[in-house]
Each structure stands twice: as C-alpha cells, then as structure tokens.
C-alpha cells in the first residue's frame, strides 16, 4: 500500500476531487494547511505596523492507495492541480505497512 500526500492550491481542490473520483478513488482525507515556499505570502499593515504574512493557504490531501495505482494518482493530481504558476504545490508518495477500515476491520486492499 502507498500513501499519496498532495499539497495543492485551495481553489483546485474541487477539480482534483472530481478527477480522482472519475479515476475511481473513493476515499481521501483532507485538511487545511499553510504553505511556505517560493510563493511568498503577502504584507498586511495595521495602524502603521507592517506584518509579513509568510504563509499561504493550501489544501493537503492524503490518499491511501494500492501500490499499482500510486503513479496514476500522482499523475492525475499533478495534471489537475497545475496552473503553471509558483505555489502549485507538491505531491509525495511513501510506503505504508497496512491499512484497516475501522467499521469492519478489513485490511489493505479491502480497506480502501
């Protein structure tokens, strides 16, 4: 089993979700995170004091997948989330030993 983690721009979430659904991904776990990278945040000025907001909002998606699907899924995310502008995000893949569905106790292939 593999865990695909993708950090993308928030307004791309909807497109990514649709593309993954079409491919057959039925589950994932999503969270709001802040990104730090080449894409710089912005500056806010409050009553004469300047604040450098270094972080930009991102969406982080975690998907547990069969080994065989990992590459395709990475490809789909990269393709769909791409705008070509700095800050589009990263996707990474790591191995996992096992995954269990809490409701049934099913493991691995049967769990996702």
């Amino acid at each position, binding site marked *: 089993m593999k865990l695909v983690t993708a950090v993308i721009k*928030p307004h791309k979430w909807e497109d990514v979700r649709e593309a993954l659904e079409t491919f057959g991904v039925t589950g994932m776990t999503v969270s*709001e995170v*802040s990104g730090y990278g080449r894409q710089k*945040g912005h500056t*806010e*000025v409050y009553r*004469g*004091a*300047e*604040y*450098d*907001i*270094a*972080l*930009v*909002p991102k969406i982080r998606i975690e998907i547990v997948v069969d080994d065989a699907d990992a590459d395709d899924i990475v490809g789909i995310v990269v393709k769909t989330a791409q705008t070509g502008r700095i800050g589009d995000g990263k996707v990474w893949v790591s191995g996992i030993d096992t995954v269990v569905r809490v409701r049934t106790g099913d493991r691995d292939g049967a769990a996702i």
Partner: protein
Amino acid sequence: MDYGLQAWMLASASLVLLMTPALALFYGGMSRSKSVLNMMMMSFSAMGIVGIVYVLWGWSMSYGSQDIAMLFANPFELFGLRDVEGATYLTVGFQLTFAVITAALISGAVADRLKFSAWLVFVPIWVTLSYFPLAHMVWGGGFLSGATGGLADMIFSGDGGAQVAPIDYAGGTVVHINAGVAGLVLALLLGKRLGFGREPMKPHNLTLTMIGAGLLWFGWFGFNVGSWIPGDLTGDEAGAYWLSETSLVWLNTTVATCGAMLGWLAVEKMRDGKATSLGAASGVVAGLVAITPACGALSPVGSIVLGLVAGAVCALAVGLKYRLGYDDSLDVVGVHLVGGLIGTVGIGLLATSGGLLYGDGVKQLVVQVAVAVFAMVWSGIATLAVGLLVKMVVGLRIEGDDEIEGIDGLEHGESAYDLVGARSGIGGSHHLAEGA
C-alpha cells in the same frame, strides 16, 4: 407630558424588541458551534410567532375588559386589535415585546435537542396558556394584582382591594419566574443532552455572549424604565412623578446590574480561583433579572445590595443542575427563576416603602412570596400541559445521531461558520513600517 412620554415609549418598545436578538446572541455564544443557529432560531422564531399571536388574541387575553375568573380576559373581544386605536397601538407594541422575550428565554433550557417543529408548536400555545394569563393576573387587574378578590386581598384584605398590593414593576413573575419554571419543566420532559455531565459542552464563542449581554443591558432600560404606570395621578402631578420615577428606575437598573456582575465574579474567584467572562455576562443578566420587579421600589444603595446578592446566589444556583440532574442547558432556571425569585422576594425586604428592613413589617414580604408561589404553580402546570401535548402531536426530541452531528444541520440545513483560510495567521513575522 404626553409627548415626552410617547418619545420614550417609542424608544422603550424598540429597546425591548432588541432584547430578543440580543438574547439570541447571549444564548448562541454559549451553545456549541454545531447548534448555535438552532439556538438563535428559537429566539427569532419566537419573535415571528408571538408578534402575530399577540395582535390576534394576546392583547385581548391580557388587557381586554372581559375578565374571566380573574385569570385571563376574553381572547375574542379585541381579536386582531378590533376596536383598538390611537396611542393604544403603542401600548400593544410595548407589551408584545415582553411576550416575545419571555417565550424566547425558555429556549436556553432546551439547547441542542428540541425538534424545531416542536418549538414552533409549543410557543404559541404556551404564551396563550401561561404568559397571557399571568400578564392579566399581575398587570391586568387580575388575581395577582392588588384588586378586590385577588390573592393579596385574600391574605390582607384592605379597603377596595388588598391592603398591600403585590409589586412586580416590569416582570419578575410574569417574565422571569414564568420563563424559568417553563424552562425547568421542559428540560425535565426532554431529558438530558447526550453526554451531559461527561462531554465538554462549553461555550463556543464567548465574544457573542458578551455582545449579547451588553445589548441586553441596553435593551433592559426600555424594559424597566418603560414600565412606569401613573397610578391615579394626572396632569402635572403625573408629570413630576414620571420625571422622578424614571430617573430612579434607570439608576437602580444600572447599579443593581453592576452589583450582580461583581457578586458573580466574586463567587467565581473564591470558588474556582478565576473570574470568567461568562461569569461577568451572566452576572449582568442575573442583576437585570433581579432588579426587574424591584426597580421602582428600592433606593440605589438597596439596588446595589440586591444586585450583589442576586449575582452571588445565581452563580451558585447554576451549579445545581449537576447535583439534581436536570439539563437546564444554558441556565434559565439558575438565572431567571432564581434571579426572579430574589427580586420578587427581595422587595419584601428592601422596599423603601413596605420593606421589612425598612421597618415596615412582613406584609409585603408575605404577599410577594405568595404571588411568586402561585405564579410558579400556574406556569408549571401550564407548561407541563403544553409540553405533553406537543410531545404527543409532533414529538419533542431529535434522534441521538442527529444530536451528535449537530442540530443546525438537521433542522436548518446550515452550518454557522465557514472559516476556510481564517488561519493564515500562523506566524507571519513582523517588521516596523518604514513610513510609520
């Protein structure tokens, strides 16, 4: 004097109307984020329903001329305000706002779990069986007024009515004791929230609660200072009395509230080690409740004393529900029933004219207690009847799973907040602007 009075009554009615949205904030902030909208909707819908019911038969039942057994008046006499005209429309409006908020107050006891349809059915029947009759009895010359044949007259009969008339300036019995008892009965009928006493059910947004408390205080000036009644004075006498009475009532309302806030905070500091903002907001409301019946009868210093006591006692009383095991979720009992009783009974002790501590004997005290007890019994029975009826017809409680997911989604199909991206604040760094 009429014109100045009219100006103030227009302001007062508007202020009391504002109290119900303010209550929605006060209660809403104390709810969890998954049920804040339902909590606010109970207040808002009470405005819609009671406003209309009041015009249809509420005014007639409360202040109509066709008294029935000193308990209420004929609902059909002035149905839809037939035959009402002129400045009386404003009196109707002012009284309407009291009925609205009394119903809304009850909602604090049933947070998170009452079907919205049950609320919509409960409210109009409850005001009809409990609020309008009590308003008639206390203010409409009925059984709890000083009138001949009334309760006070039965106890200490006087010349053409009671020797000692019961005092309820702006609604200690009619509004607060009434709503408090109704909250208790409904909470018992409904049962505890899932996880009550085990899971965290802390306020989700205390800034809302504090805005609510501030606006309630503001609105309460209409509630108390607008509740002046000239008695049998006329002309210049009435005018002079109005000037002096409203001045005193305004000040008493303020300083009792100050006292209650400090009383509540002092209890918290001693008991829990910390004085909380929820305590300050709650103390404000407890003080306002307690001074409501008493605001015309006390001196400013007496009001401070009443406030201190009310704040301290209510701060203790809100813990009772855990001991006794009823889930009065947002403390309608601990604040409104207890606070209302303290004010109503406190008059018997602290009234500058009639109070025990001012050497005027126990008669006022006895009358006040008797009225409070009667009101509690009436409200209790009426609420029980309406509650059981509603339970039969539409059912009272939502499903357990829905309660866990949150009543906002179930009943209103909404979630209060959508704060995506409200977190970009993690650690930006800070430089001084060059230009500053």
